[in-house]
């Protein structure tokens, strides 16, 4: 990453001691003692020790560590849900640990939105009212906050669920509400505390993907906590690795994988299954163009010509893939004066889920040269894989 990017949050020498005599614990720490010895000698727990890092404007920074590494404490220090013991956290020139009560409230309202591991939705409020919460707290006028929250819900795909209560939604949907609540607030930093850890693996992947899409669109400064290295590597622009309350390594996913700072990190990344990373998803390219089932044959043919392709995937209004239209079939449809293309589709193509291993894809290319469609469980078209991309991806894996 470019070190000259504008810094949003500056964390310097941050420490946190749990207990009544923090000074004593920090003195011992300065003498070089570690967490277990300090606990034994003083009964104080050294939660975080001398943490320094920057969060750049617009990046997605992942703070990753196992349980007990202090990552949850760290994220709570950022918006001071937990008071720090020493150190600075500077956001837009304000040092958060020294703010007075009023200034702290103001700072939280302006700078921080938070998404929680167990969603922390208010059960007595509807989805809409939950999404409005941050704005309501800030005193935004009713009709305005209604519109903003509605748009946020639309962004996370929850349109039509406004009047439901959280307990009527699935876990994944509940966390979307949590995300909408954070987005509606439009604070300058998004804090995500193990936001996807309580979701089952497939939904989790979806949510990661969606977060990345949102991130591409909005470029919101995000601090994301996780204990899952796969997740960290998947979504992080940069990763801060924590162990026992100390920073072990800071770097891009690539740097962490290729240049582990010490034995601990090396052992950690051994757990990442490289072959598992090589899935249809990793070789997938976005679809340049699709046709809709309601399109006429002329429109579809026109699209194919515009993109110099000789077949086009056709989806319905829910983006569900319903078939493939070949250029010949389209011209035949025009001759037959067909209104729509639905009767001229072929099902003679391959589709795979995003987690399909690349090796399997390779065999599918033998007969026809259509791009392979990648679809999710709802049969929605996520992207396509072409032969070249698979070869490219496998070749690169071989080099590593």
């Amino acid at each position, binding site marked *: 990453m470019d070190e000259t990017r504008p810094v949003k949050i500056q964390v310097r020498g941050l420490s946190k001691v749990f207990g009544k005599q923090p000074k004593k614990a920090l003195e011992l720490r300065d003498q070089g003692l570690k967490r277990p010895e300090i606990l034994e000698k003083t009964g104080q727990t050294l939660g975080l020790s001398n943490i320094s890092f920057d969060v750049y404007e617009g990046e997605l920074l992942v703070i990753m560590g196992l349980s007990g590494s202090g990552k949850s404490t760290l994220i709570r220090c950022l*918006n001071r*849900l937990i008071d720090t013991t020493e150190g600075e956290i500077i956001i837009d020139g304000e040092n958060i640990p020294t703010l007075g009560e009023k200034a702290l*409230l*103001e*700072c*939280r*309202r302006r700078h*921080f*939105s*938070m998404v*929680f591991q*167990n969603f*922390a939705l*208010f*059960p*007595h409020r509807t989805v809409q009212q939950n999404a409005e*919460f*941050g704005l*309501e*707290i*800030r005193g935004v006028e009713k009709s305005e906050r209604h519109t903003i929250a509605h748009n946020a819900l639309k962004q996370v795909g929850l349109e039509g669920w406004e009047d439901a*209560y959280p307990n009527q939604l699935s876990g994944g949907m509940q966390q979307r509400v949590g995300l909408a609540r954070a987005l509606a*607030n439009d604070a300058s930093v998004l*804090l995500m505390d193990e936001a996807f850890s309580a979701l089952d693996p497939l939904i989790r992947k979806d949510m990661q993907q969606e977060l990345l899409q949102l991130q591409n669109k909005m470029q919101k400064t995000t601090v994301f906590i996780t204990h899952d290295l796969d997740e960290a590597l998947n979504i992080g622009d940069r990763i801060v690795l924590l162990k026992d309350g100390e920073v072990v390594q800071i770097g891009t996913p690539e740097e962490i994988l290729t240049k582990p700072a010490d034995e601990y990190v090396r052992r950690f990344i051994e757990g990442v299954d490289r072959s598992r990373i090589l899935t249809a998803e990793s070789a997938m390219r976005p679809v340049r163009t699709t046709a809709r089932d309601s399109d006429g044959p002329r429109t579809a043919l026109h699209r194919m010509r515009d993109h110099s392709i000789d077949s086009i995937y056709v989806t319905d209004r829910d983006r569900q893939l319903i078939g493939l239209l070949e250029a010949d079939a389209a011209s035949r449809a025009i001759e037959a004066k067909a209104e729509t293309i639905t009767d001229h589709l072929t099902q003679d193509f391959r589709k795979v889920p995003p987690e399909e291993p690349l090796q399997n894809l390779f065999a599918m290319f033998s007969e026809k040269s259509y791009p392979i469609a990648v679809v999710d469980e709802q049969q929605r078209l996520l992207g396509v894989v072409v032969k070249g991309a698979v070869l490219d991806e496998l070749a690169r894996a071989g080099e590593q």
Partner: protein
Amino acid sequence: MEIPRIPLGSWIEGGLTWLTSEYSVVTRGISRITQTGINSLNDGLMWLPEWALLAIIALLCWKLASTRLAIGAVAGLALIWNLGLWNPMIETLTLVVIATLVAVVIALPVGIAAALSERLYRLIMPMLDFMQTMPAFVYLIPAIPFFGIGSVSAIFATVIFSMPPAIRFTTLGIRQVPVELIEAADAYGATRGQKLFKVQLPLSLPTVMAGINQTIMLALSMVVIAAMIGADGLGSEVWRAIQRLRPGDGFEAGIAVVILAMLLDRLTQSLRKSRRS
């Protein structure tokens, strides 16, 4: 050597006598206001013809709870009417309603304060233990010098005896709000007031309602006992039956109390359940 007996009783009496004489203006004021409240509610309920009140209560049961409760209410109240206990029943109901109102008005803020301040919590909890475990009759004795014989004394003793559950449940309800929801409210910059009114109180409402239900039940049992210091109502019917050794009369009045209790209990419980939790 003989250890002298601690004159705890005379200390308390001294304190009570001092309170009575020093604060007679206050007690008389309270007495007047309470008596006016009792009289107007009582007169209002008595002014309605029996069948009209019966219909209103049945409608209330049907709307708020179920048809079954409405049918039960009609049958029970009709029995009370038939036994000629309608007026004492109204008097008892009046005392219960007023005592509960006073108890709740005091209990809610105290319960909230105790939930939010650990020190207050530690101060109030032993007081509640005292109020609840002290034999209920004992409150009747100082009530008389304070407010004289009659309904106001009954209300005083009843409020003290029935208030603890409302305080306890309010405190419990607020303390039970999950930490993560408090954290969420904090993270979005909520002030204490916003946190209380937008998160803590709405979420503790079912528990608070359970407390109020308990308060009503205790109030009912106490206003019956308070017949001993001249409170009107079903209690005085029971009291008279005891003095005249007429078990039949006693049970009739007792059954009327049971009917009233069940009715109030089911009604307030349905109020609690109809809320979304």
